C-alpha cells in the first residue's frame, strides 16, 4: 500500500522534475538567443554608424574638393608618356649611376720613357729594378695614370700648378677690394651715397612730376584728406 502510494508521488515528482528541467533548457536557449540578438543589434547599429561615417568621409573627401586642393596647393599632374617604363630593365637604366672608373681596381697604364725600359735587363728582377730606376728618374705616381676616355694633357696638368698662384693672386686683390668696400659703404651708406642719390632724385623729381608721375600721389593725398 505504502509503496504504491509513494510510487505515485515519486512519479509525480519525476514528471515535475523533468518538466522543470525542460523549462530550464528552454530558458537557457531563450537567454542565449536574446544575447545573440543583442550582438546582432549591435552589429547592425555599428554597420549603420559605419555607413554614416563613410558617407561623411565621402562627402568631405569628395573628388571635387580633392581636385580643388590639387589645383591650389598640391599641384600634381598626370604623368607624361616618358614617365612610363617598359619593365625592370628600363627602370634600372634610369637609376644607373654616372659612368666613372672603378676606384678599387683602376686600369693603370705605366708611361715610363722607352729608353729606361730598354736598359732594364730582364723580367725576373721586375720588383726591384723598376723601383730603383723610377726612384732615380721620377716618382711612380707621375708615371701612372688611370685609363679614361679623356686624353691626359700633360702640359695642361703642368699649367694649373703654375697658373694657380696667378689666379689666387688675382682673386686676392678682388677679395681685398670686396672686403674693403663693405667697410666703406657700411660707414658711408647712411650718409654720403644716399644724400647724393636723394639730391639727384630731388633734382629730377620736378621734371618727372611735370611729365605726369605727380598725378599719382595727388589723388592719394586727396583720398587721405
Amino acid at each position: 500500500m505504502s509503496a504504491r502510494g509513494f510510487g505515485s508521488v515519486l512519479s509525480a515528482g519525476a514528471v515535475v522534475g523533468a518538466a522543470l528541467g525542460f523549462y530550464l533548457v528552454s530558458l537557457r536557449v531563450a537567454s542565449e538567443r536574446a544575447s545573440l540578438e543583442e550582438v546582432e543589434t549591435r552589429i547592425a547599429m555599428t554597420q549603420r554608424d559605419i555607413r554614416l561615417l563613410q558617407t561623411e568621409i565621402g562627402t568631405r573627401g569628395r573628388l571635387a574638393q580633392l581636385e580643388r586642393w590639387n589645383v591650389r596647393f598640391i599641384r600634381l599632374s598626370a604623368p607624361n608618356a616618358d614617365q612610363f617604363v617598359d619593365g625592370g630593365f628600363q627602370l634600372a637604366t634610369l637609376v644607373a649611376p654616372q659612368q666613372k672608373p672603378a676606384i678599387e681596381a683602376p686600369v693603370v697604364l705605366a708611361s715610363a720613357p722607352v729608353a729606361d725600359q730598354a736598359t732594364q735587363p730582364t723580367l725576373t728582377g721586375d720588383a726591384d729594378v723598376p723601383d730603383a730606376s723610377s726612384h732615380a728618374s721620377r716618382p711612380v705616381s707621375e708615371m701612372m695614370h688611370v685609363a679614361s676616355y679623356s686624353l691626359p694633357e700633360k702640359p695642361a696638368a703642368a699649367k694649373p700648378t703654375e697658373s694657380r698662384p696667378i689666379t689666387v693672386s688675382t682673386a686676392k686683390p678682388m677679395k681685398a677690394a670686396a672686403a674693403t668696400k663693405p667697410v666703406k659703404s657700411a660707414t658711408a651708406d647712411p650718409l654720403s651715397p644716399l644724400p647724393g642719390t636723394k639730391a639727384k632724385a630731388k633734382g629730377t623729381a620736378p621734371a618727372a612730376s611735370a611729365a605726369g608721375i605727380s598725378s599719382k600721389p595727388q589723388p592719394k593725398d586727396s583720398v587721405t584728406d
Partner: protein
Amino acid sequence: MNAPTPALVARPERLRLVGQRRQILALMHQRLMFGMLVYGGIIAIIALRLIYLAAFGDHAGRKGGEIDLTPERGDIVDRDGQALARTIDAWTIGLQPSKVIGNRLDLARKMAELMPEKDAAAYLAMLRSNHSFYYLRRRAPPGLVSAINALGEPGLALEREPDRLYPQTSLAAHVVGFTDVDGKGNAGIERAFDEQLRDPARRGQPIVLSISSRIQQALEHELNEAMTHFSAIGAAGVIMDIHSGEILAMTSLPQLNPNAAGQGTPEARFNRATLGVYELGSTFKPFTVAMAMDSGVVKSMGQMYPCPDALHAFGHTITDTHPFGRACSVSEIMMRSSNIGTAQIAAQLGKPRQEAFLRKMGFLDKVNVELMERGRTLTPGSRWGPFETMTVGFGHAIAVTPLHLATGYATLFNGGIYRPATLLKVGRDHPAGKGHRVFTEETSYKMRALLRLVVTNGTGKKADAPGYRIGGKTGTAEKIVGGRYTSAAVVTSFAGVFPMDEPRYVIVVMLDDPKATAETYGFHTAGWNVAPVVSKTVSRIAPMLGVRPDMNREPNMAEVLPFVQEKAEQ
C-alpha cells in the same frame, strides 16, 4: 413523464422519487463533467500555448524591424562602388505653435539667433499663428539640433527623417539626377529607376552605374576649365567604352548641385549630353566617308575629288575654311575638314543609303539609353533632297545629341557594330546591349588611320596627347540665331577615339558658344578650344583606364599618308 402505473412491489411514489433523484444526479454529473472538460480544455489550451511560446516563441526583449538596415531608398553607386546617392537619417526641425509653453517673444529672439534665415518678427508671427506645423529646417546640422534641444521648448519638434544625400555633390549630377522633397525621383537615374529604388524587395541592393567617378571628375574639371576660359554658355562631354557601350563619364555644364536641385537654374538642370540636340558639324564627316567606303563609292583613301574654293549646288554655295583650290584626295578632305569634298562624297552616296545608315546607327531616333531625358533628333525630314544630303554629309541640317555622336563613333571604331549606350555597369546582372552590324570590319579598320591623320597633320593637332594615339575629328558648327546661321556663335565639338591602333574608348566633348581669346588668335573653331580639353583629359584618364602610353605605336598610317600632298599649315 411516465404515466402512473399500478405498482405491484413497491409504492410507486417512492420508486418514482428514487428514479428522479438518480436521473437528476446523472444530469448533474454530466453537467459537472462538461464544465470540467471546458475548464480543462481551456487550461490545456493555455498550457499548450505557453509551451509553444516557450519553445518557439519570441522573447519579450526582441526589437523587431528597427535594426533593419534596408535604406528607405536604394543607393546609387559608381562602377567602383563609390556612393553617388545615399539615403541617410537627417534631423528635421519643426515648430508646433500650439504646444509652445514659454514666452513666445523670447523664443522668437532665440530662434532668430540660431536660425538667421528669418528675423525675430517672422518667428513671432509663426509662433502666434494658428498653423499646426511649420518646417523650420530640413537636413539640419547636428550643432544646431543640439542648440535647439537645449532651448527645452516642447513646441520645437526634432525629428529624424530619411533624406537623400549626394556625397559627391555635383559630380555626374545629370546622370544620377535628383529627388524632390518627398523623395521621388525627378531626373536622371533617380527618375528612370524610381520604382526599383523604392521597391522594398530590391532597394537593399544598390544600383551600380557604369560611371567611374575619377574619370567623370577629370572630364568635368577639364571641361569646366575650358568653359570658363572661353566664356562658353554650356558644355557637354561623354566618355564611352566602345565595345560594351558603357558610359564611363557623362557631364553637362553648367554644374548642378543635386543636394539643392531646386536652387539650380533651368539652364543647369538641362542635360546637354542627352536632351540637347546640336548640329555637330564636321564631326559627321567620318560617317559620310565610312558610308561611302562601305557602299563602294570611295574605293581608296587616294580617290580624288575636285575641290574648288567654292562649290555651287542647287542654288546654294558651299565653302571651306581651309580651301584647296585644286583636286584633293579623300585623306586630304578629312585632314583639312573640307565641306566641299565631303558634300561631293555624300552626293555620290545618295539620300537612301545615307538615311539607311543613319537609321542603323540610331541617329534618327531618340538616343538609346536608360535616362528619360532624351532629346528628339532633328533631321531634314520631308525636305531631305539632294542638297540636304550634301549638308547632312558634313553635319549640317541634322541635329543630334552628343551621346548620339559618341555611340556613332563607338560603332565606327569597334569593328562596325552598333550597340546601345548604357549607364549600368555591364556584368553578370546586366549584359551588354544586343548589337547589329552597320559598317564592315574593313571600313572600321581603315578609318583608324584617317582619323589619326586629322590629329597628327590636320585640324585636331591640339587634341594629341603624346603616346596615347588619339584619333578624332573636330567640328565647328554655326548656331542658328534668329532663323539664320551666324558665324558669331558656334558649337564646337571634338569626337575622338584612343588608342587609335587598338581603339577602346571614345571621347566626345562639346562647347556651346565659346568666345575667341588672345591666345587662340581670334579663332573660335574647335581645333582651338575643345581639342586641348581632349588632350588634357585623355592624358589624365588613360593611365586609369589601363591604356599605356607608347611613343612607338601608331595605326597603319601607310593607308593615308601617301595621299597627302602637303603638310597642313595649321
